[in-house]
């Protein structure tokens, strides 16, 4: 094993690349949970985003349309979840799980019906990489961020934007108020349901961006269940990051690093012992459990997170 395998520029680049979809899901989680709705259907939004993004790219050969369709698909899933959990005040975990199963079944089913066993076509429009030519001469940095996918930069901008939105704007304050104390928020004239709907839909769009990045940005194809639990890992990153966009990004980078290591350490050995690469694959998931269990920093969710809200007058 060498330092290059642990901390090299290519590992840094891979960390960013692998962290991006998790971070996007985590941002979705931050927005929805700050408004008081738990959305474990982020995985579902991601998966349909990945699939329908590819379908639209195949049909339209236009990356913007593909991206738009991906977001729309993710938002539709989120709309179902919002309707179930806000309007019907149903169990948010059951609703989310039903949507996860639906998304997996639906995409796998349609994938087979549309592309059979041959897989998605190879010449699809993809999300472009951003070449930062002026960095090419800079050691390490140039290799690490010099040619990342555009979605990685979109993710970075969204992190900053959402951090400012949540903690520096009136609308952000309202959203947080709804998640902490909906009754108090309503008393001062805030429409709790409308804000929660908006937040859940936004979370679906953010997760779908993560899914579109996986299919349109990285793989240029769709494989069944390709999100591989990243929506759930995103939720863990959100908790680990204490329900803040910047914290969620930091946590996502840790998960991304765990992922990157499982690739860079292939064939590596410590002394005479070969590193069991397959076991490294468990890193993101085990890290997630440790993060959620609070072994790496206790944190507090929004007070009204996951609790359905009933308007006073209509109860």
């Amino acid at each position, binding site marked *: 094993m060498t330092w290059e395998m642990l901390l090299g520029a290519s590992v840094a680049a891979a960390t960013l690349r692998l962290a991006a979809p998790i971070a996007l899901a985590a941002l979705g989680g931050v927005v929805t949970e700050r408004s008081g709705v738990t959305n474990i259907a982020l995985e579902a939004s991601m998966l349909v985003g990945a699939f329908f993004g590819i379908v639209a790219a195949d049909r339209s050969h236009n990356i913007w349309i593909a991206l738009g369709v991906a977001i729309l698909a993710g938002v539709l899933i989120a709309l179902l979840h919002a309707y179930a959990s806000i309007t019907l005040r149903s169990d948010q975990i059951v609703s989310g799980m039903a949507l996860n199963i*639906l998304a997996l*079944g*639906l995409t796998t*089913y*349609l994938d087979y019906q549309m592309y059979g066993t041959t897989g998605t076509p190879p010449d699809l429009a993809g999300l472009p990489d951003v070449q930062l030519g002026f960095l090419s001469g800079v050691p390490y940095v140039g290799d690490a961020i010099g040619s990342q996918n555009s979605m990685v930069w979109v993710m970075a901008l969204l992190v900053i934007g959402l951090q400012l939105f949540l903690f520096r704007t009136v609308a952000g304050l309202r959203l947080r108020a709804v998640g902490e104390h909906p009754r108090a928020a309503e008393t001062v004239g805030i429409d709790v349901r409308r804000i929660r709907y908006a937040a859940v839909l936004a979370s679906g769009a953010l997760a779908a961006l993560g899914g579109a990045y996986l299919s349109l940005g990285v793989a240029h194809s769709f494989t069944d269940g390709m999100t591989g*639990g990243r929506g759930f890992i995103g939720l863990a990153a959100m908790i680990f990051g204490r329900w803040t966009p910047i914290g969620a990004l930091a946590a996502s980078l840790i998960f991304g690093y765990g992922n990157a290591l499982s690739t860079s350490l292939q064939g590596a050995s410590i002394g005479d012992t070969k590193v069991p690469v*397959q*076991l490294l694959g468990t890193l993101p998931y085990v890290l997630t459990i440790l993060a959620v*269990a609070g072994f790496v920093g206790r944190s507090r969710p929004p007070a009204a997170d996951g609790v359905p809200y*009933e308007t006073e007058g209509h109860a």
Partner: protein
Amino acid sequence: MTQLQGTTTTGPGAERPAPSVRQLTFQWAGGPAIPVLSVAIALVLGAVFVLLSGNDPVKGYVALFQGAFGTPYDITETIVAAIPLVLTGLAVAVAFRTGLFNIGAQGQLLVGALAAGWAGSQWATLPGFILMPIVIVFGVAGGAFYGGIVGLLKAVRGVNEVITTIMLNYTIVFVMHWLLQAGPMTAQNAFGTPASTPIGVGARLPVIIPNELVLFSRLHAGIILAALAVIAFWFLLWRTPLGYQLRAVGLGARAAAQAGIDPARHMILVMAIAGGFAGLGGMIEVSGVFGRVYDGFSSSYGFDAIAVALLGKNSPLGIVFAALLFGAFVHGGAYMQSHAGISSNLVAIIQAFVLFVIAAESLVRSLTRRRGRARKPVEAIA
């Protein structure tokens, strides 16, 4: 009043106790109307999808039925497919009864399979009457250990069991890759598919249908273990003090705590029990069907199990019927795919709709009861 009427918003369901989706009481005796209705609705919605994707739903469903029940052999295969679903269904249901949502039946089944497969090949030369009990104990203990982790984290650190179980499902997949591809359990000669060394003859569950009756049937003695598990589930929950306490926690953790029942201890216990059921399912697959552990076998039992438990209303008989239904979907689905050109993944869509309809049904009931007072969700599962 039939249960069917209870699904309408204006129905007279108000005077009935309204169970939430996690607290369904033992009401199979109340009639299978709701489950049958929800399957019917799900089949119709599934048909819409088949139509939208340009296929003939009637042809598809006929092929599905033929595939599942067309010949005596198919019927036994449907039962073979249903057996692990019964066990994982029990694993989900026993947790539901205590107010926990166990999405980890998949992982628990795999750990049970690995433990049983290890024991079965480690002591392969032992005679059956010694080896079989050992293998069963290893399978149950493996699953119980994996489920117990979830209960422990929930009880001690307040970790939502949904996140933990999902993460553990993924974790075991990679551990399995390691064990069976480059680890201590890897077989040298497995015909290209990563697998463990075969288990001993004494660890194999025999086929119980003679060739003269159904040629090449694979229906194995695991069906007896599954039946015993169903009885154990019933006996535990409705005939023991522990079962009473578990159900009390499920109906209201705070009230149970007031009555001197420690919800934390019961969470650990029930998740271990749930894992034990799923682990036994894994053991049965290894001992009854494969004879060794294949890498990546059984990919969807976990999600299927949720639908089985909810459709069966978390009751013993209900789970058996629901498992047979989904076993038919699983076995018939392959035939549908090859003969009607409709992906067997249609089954997953139908499952999701079943889940929706059942959730909506209990929801509508709780709404009709809710008038006039706000009700908070059960604390234990928040």
